[in-house]
């Protein structure tokens, strides 16, 4: 977790020059809370250039933002004015009434925004999206060729056959990797797989869980079958450590985030042979399906409710400056931007492929977060191989139902 807090008003004075003229903010305090990956670091840095002698900008980019945001924004005045969110982290903020509608701010300052950037709940704009994200297939084209595979696999069955061939020919002892560390990443693996089967997580309109079916079992079985091609401590892999393994040339194929795709093809960060031969594609399909087994995510920002209107306006202006078309133009490989004028680069291939092949968005219902957390703990035994799929599904059902009752979603 990195705590990166920068107060630049004094620094801006030292640098000199009318910095405030760039952002046009009269005065206010901008306090940003975000996750910690490259695209958000870029936006945080861009927002801090709005600091001046009347405007203070502080940023906190941490992987713990999801646990911090609700208590921090519940305080009055809120500890942060801007909370960067995604499909899942906006839901607790909405449920607690912790963010404010942005319609009038959009009308005043949001001319640069495209219609699909406006996240509307019940007719009101509650967030501005600036990038799309998702986990997609990342493969070593050279190792596939060496194993004699001419058409790259598009289904998980195909990926496993390719892995078996690579293992047989001694190209890699453990060709595959997946983020099976207990917790958020393991749950995300299941969510991705289950979305690929086309199933629904809950009964329509209710919080009652509906994954105890053939699709749930197929998703679980596929996850388990993949582990036979992974290094023995696969239960400690999260997406960052897996990406590092890939950059070190130890992985043949994996599903990983589009937001770090740029680091995998950057010769300064990855081994040259890896950077040159990495191929991105849509996430593989599961079973006989046609839907990529991955969720589509959007990342955006929201403005806190428990702050002064002046701070809200200043924060919105600072964020408009940060998500201006210039940012997307300057950093085309850092994310799949939803910003006007963005042309997808080589790092965006996977996410764009997901979107065009019909991948489904991560569900934005209020109880999805509870399911995600339950999956993170209950799937640990299953993925290690000490529990079977039926028992795992029964445990998930029981644990989720209790959690939903305690949180008030099921009476």
């Amino acid at each position, binding site marked *: 977790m990195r705590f990166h807090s920068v107060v630049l008003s004094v620094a801006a004075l030292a640098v000199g020059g009318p910095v405030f003229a760039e952002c046009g903010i009269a005065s206010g305090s901008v306090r940003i809370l975000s996750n910690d990956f490259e695209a958000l670091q870029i936006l945080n840095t861009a927002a801090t250039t709005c600091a001046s002698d009347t405007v203070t900008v502080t940023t906190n980019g941490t992987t713990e933002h999801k646990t911090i945001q609700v208590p921090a924004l519940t305080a009055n005045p809120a500890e942060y004015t801007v909370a960067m969110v995604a499909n899942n982290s906006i839901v607790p903020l909405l449920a607690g009434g912790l963010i404010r509608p942005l319609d009038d701010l959009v009308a005043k300052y949001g001319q640069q925004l495209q219609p699909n950037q406006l996240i*509307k709940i019940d007719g009101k704009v509650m967030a501005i999206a600036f990038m799309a994200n998702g986990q997609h297939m990342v493969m070593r084209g050279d190792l596939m060729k060496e194993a004699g595979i001419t058409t790259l696999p598009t289904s998980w069955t195909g990926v496993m056959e390719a892995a078996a061939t690579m293992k047989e020919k001694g190209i890699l002892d453990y060709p595959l990797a997946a983020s099976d560390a207990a917790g958020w990443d393991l749950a995300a693996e299941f969510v991705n797989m289950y979305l690929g089967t086309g199933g629904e997580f809950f009964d329509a*309109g209710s919080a009652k869980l509906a994954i105890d079916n053939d699709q749930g079992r197929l998703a679980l079985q596929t996850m388990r079958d993949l582990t036979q091609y992974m290094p023995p401590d696969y239960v*400690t892999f999260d997406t960052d450590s897996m990406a590092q393994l890939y950059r070190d040339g130890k992985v043949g194929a994996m599903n990983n985030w589009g937001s770090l795709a740029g680091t995998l093809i950057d010769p300064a960060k990855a081994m040259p042979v890896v950077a040159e031969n990495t191929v991105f594609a849509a996430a593989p399909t599961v079973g006989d399906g046609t839907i990529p087994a991955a969720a589509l995510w959007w990342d955006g920002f929201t403005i806190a409710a428990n702050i002064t209107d002046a701070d809200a306006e200043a924060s919105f202006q600072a964020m408009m400056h940060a998500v201006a078309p210039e940012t997307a133009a300057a950093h085309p490989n850092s994310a799949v931007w939803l910003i006007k004028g963005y042309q997808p680069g080589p790092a965006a291939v996977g996410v764009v492929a997901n979107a065009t092949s019909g991948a489904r968005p991560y569900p934005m*219902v209020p109880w999805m977060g509870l399911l995600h957390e339950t999956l993170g703990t209950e799937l640990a035994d299953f993925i290690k191989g000490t529990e079977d799929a039926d028992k795992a599904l029964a445990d998930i059902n029981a644990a989720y139902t209790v959690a939903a009752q*305690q949180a008030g979603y099921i*009476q």
Partner: protein
Amino acid sequence: MGPSLIAMFLFMALPIVSIFVQSLHIEHPQVVIVSETCQPFGGCVETTSVDAAAGAKLRAEAPLGQFNGFGTYGDRNHLAFAEIGIILTESAGLGDAVSRIYNLPLYRALAFTVAYTAVVTPLAMILGFLIALAVNTLPQLFKGTVIFFSLVPMLITPLVGALILYWMLNAEGILGAAIQGLFNDPNLSTRTSAPLTWVTLMTYGVWTNAPFSFIVFYAGLQAVPRETLEAAMIDGASRIERIRFVVLPSIKPLVLFVLLVQLMDNFRVFEPIISFNAASNASSLSFLVYSSLNTQTTQLFGSAAATSMITIGFITVLIVPVLLRVARDLSGGKT
């Protein structure tokens, strides 16, 4: 007497009462409405969302939440009375019943917590006592340095010490590779196997808890009556007999004190589980409280409070025998 009673009331009794009251409540039922959600993919669809205004109104009226009585104590995430009943009537034999009970979160946490306490407490005390005996026989020149190094496990921030050990146990780290070589199994990983994880956590526990026993026993050894020791030596008692019949009885109150403190401390084991990323293999009661509160969705205060009260209950049961022994010794004038 007065000030300490007031302090105990303010800082111990009141917080416990407050937690107990919290444990009797759960979150208000969420008011859910159907609304239209528009996002970059898939356009606008009808989804359900929470009516934040209605929820805020409920919370303003009754901030503690909805009264649930002792319901939280008996639900699946705590003592699971209903589930245990079903398991005991339906299960096929003792092994099946045990494995199904072990599947319940609190009982799994209890299993590791009790095992950890039962193993680490005596081992740490014995190790501390042996180190104290050894240091006591050193020449004055070396005593200071050796004492410092014996205290190092307690000086290092627990999280940092655990992380160092965790990375050494990585399959590519010194200890991890050594263990793989020792058992001649390249697939062996201490992180994936639950028994090995337990052993790792307990070893870490002994390593960090030994210094506390060491320092208390070392101080106690200085107060052993020299005349009795010399008399025993003259009578021809061997080293072990001297320790057994002179040293140990004189430090018995210290042993009870250290036992009491270690039992309470070890029952609250929490940091190693975080530092070793061992949550999937080992869980503890404190870790359950942490997971209830460190959520990315709704913080479950009622659940955390109930687990805390259950922990207090178990610790009380654990230390009552020791407390009775201390009380009896004190009133019998044996110290």
